[in-house]
């Protein structure tokens, strides 16, 4: 095929593109991901039964805030990474800002706490459940984020996949937070953070396979 013929074909009757479509799709993916994570978590692990306590509600909100920060930083970074050359615009470390900030706060909480409480604060009672549930629940939101990325044109597939994992893990953590009864800052930082890091690693491994174009 002659390149001139291809050019002629591509440019004949070219359709205008819809500029706002990308952000609409991304917003749709975020809403869908958060809603499905919460639904799956409620259906499988169930809602914690002690929510009438104000102190507990505070921790639930804190977990939501942490997960929400992870998702919003991730989505912002992803909107760059989804476009050709987007990986050059920001350092990947930037996407980990919420986790680093939370680890710092958690470290302060540990320093302030009595030594005998340290183990309970970090390990909680259900750390393994947390570490497993968050990546498992993240599968559906991850598929939604991949759907979006496949309509775009990421040129760094490892990084795009990794950040897709972070976003999915963050959404999943929102759902899991409704069930989780381990209420301490260090627990959230270590195990929620750890579970999201696992999602990021899985995403980075899968990225080149799923996102190639």
């Amino acid at each position, binding site marked *: 095929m002659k*390149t001139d013929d291809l050019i002629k074909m591509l*440019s004949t*009757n070219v359709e205008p593109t819809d500029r706002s479509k990308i952000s609409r799709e991304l917003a749709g993916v975020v809403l869908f991901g958060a809603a499905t994570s919460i639904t799956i978590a409620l259906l499988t692990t169930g809602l914690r039964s002690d929510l009438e306590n104000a102190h507990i509600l505070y921790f639930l909100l804190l977990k939501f805030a942490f997960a929400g920060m992870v998702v919003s930083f991730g989505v912002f970074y992803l909107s760059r990474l989804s476009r*050709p050359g987007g990986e*050059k615009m920001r350092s990947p470390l930037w996407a980990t800002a919420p986790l680093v900030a939370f680890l710092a706060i958690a470290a302060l909480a540990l320093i302030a706490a009595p030594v005998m409480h340290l183990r309970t604060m970090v390990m909680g009672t259900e750390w393994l459940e947390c570490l497993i549930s968050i990546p498992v629940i993240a599968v559906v939101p991850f598929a939604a984020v991949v759907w979006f990325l496949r309509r775009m044109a990421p040129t760094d597939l490892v990084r795009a996949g990794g950040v897709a994992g972070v976003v999915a893990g963050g959404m999943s953590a929102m759902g899991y937070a409704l069930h989780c009864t381990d209420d301490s800052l260090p627990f959230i930082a270590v195990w929620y953070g750890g579970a999201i890091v696992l999602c990021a690693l899985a995403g980075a491994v899968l990225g080149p396979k799923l996102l190639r174009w």
Partner: protein
Amino acid sequence: MAANEAELKSLMVKALEGESLAYRALLDVMSRYLRAFFRVKLLGQGRSATEAEDLVQEVLLAIHTRRHTFDPDKPFTPWMHAIARYKLIDYLRRTRGAYADVPLDEVIDLAVDVDTGQAESGHDLQKLMKSLPEKMQRAIQYVKIDGLSVAEAAKRTSTSESAIKVNIHRGLKALAATVAREEKS
């Protein structure tokens, strides 16, 4: 580089608004840069000019089907470079394992002589088109090759205008995907 960022970008902005002439001019300029770029990268490794042209066409198709990913608030040339570079690395990886380690710094430099040879790739458009579902074939044939309007094509195929548009869009995406997989796989 001879053509400047401002010129390319203004063509791209018009193209995204649906101006066929601007889009054609842009594709013309880009194809010349891409040809020169891929020839420099491939001929030095004992690859043929036809392979370079395969890649030019693959990139043009990729740019077309993913043109919505260009953000008009950002410069155009880095966007184009990123696609060209991505496709080159992808091509070298899938055509020979030994080329997996492409030094990125060398690849980035697009400022090469503009080459205007009469260029032909190893792709066969007829064959590619036949691999598509019939409704996509017809939509592309009528609107993109014969130059009928979307409304006329809709009347001829007794479908809706939006069905024609969707079929063109999906058909070209499928062509781009086939081209990206068939080269010496």
